[in-house]
């Protein structure tokens, strides 16, 4: 048996070497930090290092849950991501289906290029766009309102507006990018299926309903499952660059990631921020396990694993 394994390893030597850099990378940057989870149960001291720092049991968690922030940031993170997943995917699928039906190649190419543009902007630049739009004194929105003699809006101090602003920018940035994944799978559908359906008298809406959507199912499942796996992980760039450290808006804009960032780099609470990180990872893990289990039950083919 042992010689068997050795022989097999040897015959796959080159392939193992080829995959080695990627394996080492994730081993070092993803698996090694997993051991750092013990920090959540310790009071970190720079001089003693991770292993030497004293244990404090669940104190870090207690502190986080007692401040009352836990509920707020968890709720915000989950609700925002749920909104992003639903709205973005629906928009992307609709765009992909309509793009596939549009006859003019020039229009299609131009539209695709334009819709992809926002994906090129960094969140820092999107922050500048938001500032251009919503700034109280000079913002385009208020300039427009003033010229229409409507009272101005004080957007940077009103938490209510930000739910919609954040959802808008998330969709805006992702629509063109995500639609391409769906377009790619529409293109791989056999044209003959459509022709046959047409001959049988199916109209274009029926063809979309009975051919396009079912064949998109695997792509939808994998993209949505991957997104659901991160439902407790905020897009840090979106929240941080649009809102920044604007404490006035935290009620509706603070998510787990911005909270962890602040407690780590601003308040230097190493123990508590690792406890929250751990809590976040457990939530993500549990969500993906449950969703994957449900998908497996209904349709084994499309489950992630």
């Amino acid at each position: 048996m042992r010689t068997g394994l050795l022989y097999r390893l040897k015959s796959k030597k080159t392939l193992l070497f080829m995959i080695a850099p990627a394996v080492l990378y994730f081993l070092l940057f993803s698996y090694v930090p997993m051991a750092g989870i013990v920090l959540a149960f310790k009071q970190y001291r720079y001089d003693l290092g991770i292993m030497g720092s004293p244990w404090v049991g669940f104190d870090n968690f207690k502190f986080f849950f007692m401040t009352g922030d836990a509920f707020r940031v968890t709720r915000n993170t989950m609700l925002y991501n749920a909104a992003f997943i639903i709205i973005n995917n629906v928009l992307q699928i609709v765009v992909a289906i309509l793009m596939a039906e549009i006859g003019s190649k020039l229009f299609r190419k131009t539209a695709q290029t334009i819709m992809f543009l926002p994906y090129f902007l960094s969140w820092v630049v999107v922050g500048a766009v938001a500032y251009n739009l919503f700034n109280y004194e000079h913002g385009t929105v208020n300039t427009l309102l003033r010229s229409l003699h409507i009272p101005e809006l004080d957007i940077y101090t009103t938490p209510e507006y930000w739910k919609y602003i954040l959802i808008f920018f998330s969709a805006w940035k992702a629509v063109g990018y995500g639609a391409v994944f769906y377009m790619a799978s529409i293109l791989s559908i056999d044209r003959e299926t459509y022709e046959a359906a047409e001959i049988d008298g199916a109209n274009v809406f029926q063809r979309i309903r009975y051919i396009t959507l079912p064949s998109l199912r695997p792509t939808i499942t994998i993209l949505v499952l991957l997104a659901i796996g991160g439902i407790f992980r905020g897009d840090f760039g979106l929240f941080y660059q649009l809102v920044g450290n604007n404490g006035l808006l935290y009620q509706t804009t603070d998510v787990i990631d911005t909270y962890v960032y602040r407690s780590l780099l601003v308040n230097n609470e190493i123990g508590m921020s690792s406890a929250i990180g751990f809590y976040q990872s457990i939530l993500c893990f549990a969500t993906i396990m449950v969703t994957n289990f449900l998908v497996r039950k209904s349709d084994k083919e499309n489950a992630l694993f």
Partner: protein
Amino acid sequence: MSTTSVKKSHIDQRMLDVIGYVFISLISLACLIPFILIISGSLTSESSITSDGFRIWPKEFSWDAYAFALKHPQQFISSYLLTIALTVTGTIVGLFISAMAAYVLQRQDFEWRGGFSFFFYFTTLFNGGLVPWYILMVNYLHMKNTFWSLLLPPLLNVFYIIILRTFLRSIPDAITESAKIDGAGDFTIFIRLILPLAKPGLATIGLFTALNYWNDWFNSLLFVQNEKLYTLQYLLYKMLGNLEGIRKVMAITGMQVTELPGESLKMALAILVTGPIIFLYPFVQRYFVQGLTVGAVKG
């Protein structure tokens, strides 16, 4: 088939066309307007912004903001060079490592591919979080204020490896098989045969990786204090929040503080840091739809 049903299907097609053109045009417009807003803002004179605010079309044209941004280009040039160096190195190295991994993972005769696939995929399911990773980078690998702290984090991405693997699956196994019979080794097959055939996939993932490097500010925020290591986006971030700081510096150096085109400068800087990467898109776009199929995570 009756003529009425043919007619009906024509009407349906028409309806869908109308919905399609209107809907796609509206979305395209929504994607375009913010760009127009920043370009217009960067070309408006400061006094006109102060008195009338930002508009879709400038009330008073002015190049002042660009002239000002380029008057003292040292920091700009150094950030540009750093960002270009990071983008080029990171994209080439990252793409090569990802493509090798993806190739191995889709080889049907590689018996451990399921295990390795799960090894990669698991990192997206569960991770240690920001803090242990940060401490690893800073206290154990001593990467604070180094080029490495900016180069390594965006290097590989599990999702991209999965996309590349799905793409490579579309290349027939027969190619690998026949090359093997001719006596070619696995690495030679990969370099000579697979890489050239994988162009659409590589171009697409290459563009994504390049964008991640070009647009990265987070790693600078975490790891960089030294101005020599400011990436373009981080420089922009610093300047957006810190016009007051710039004003002070200028007052000390004896420049006319009132001349600072603050509001339009913010927009001009946003244009200047975005510009170059957009030119990559036309070269890559034709490969796009081909290159982007996602397949199951299962090995």
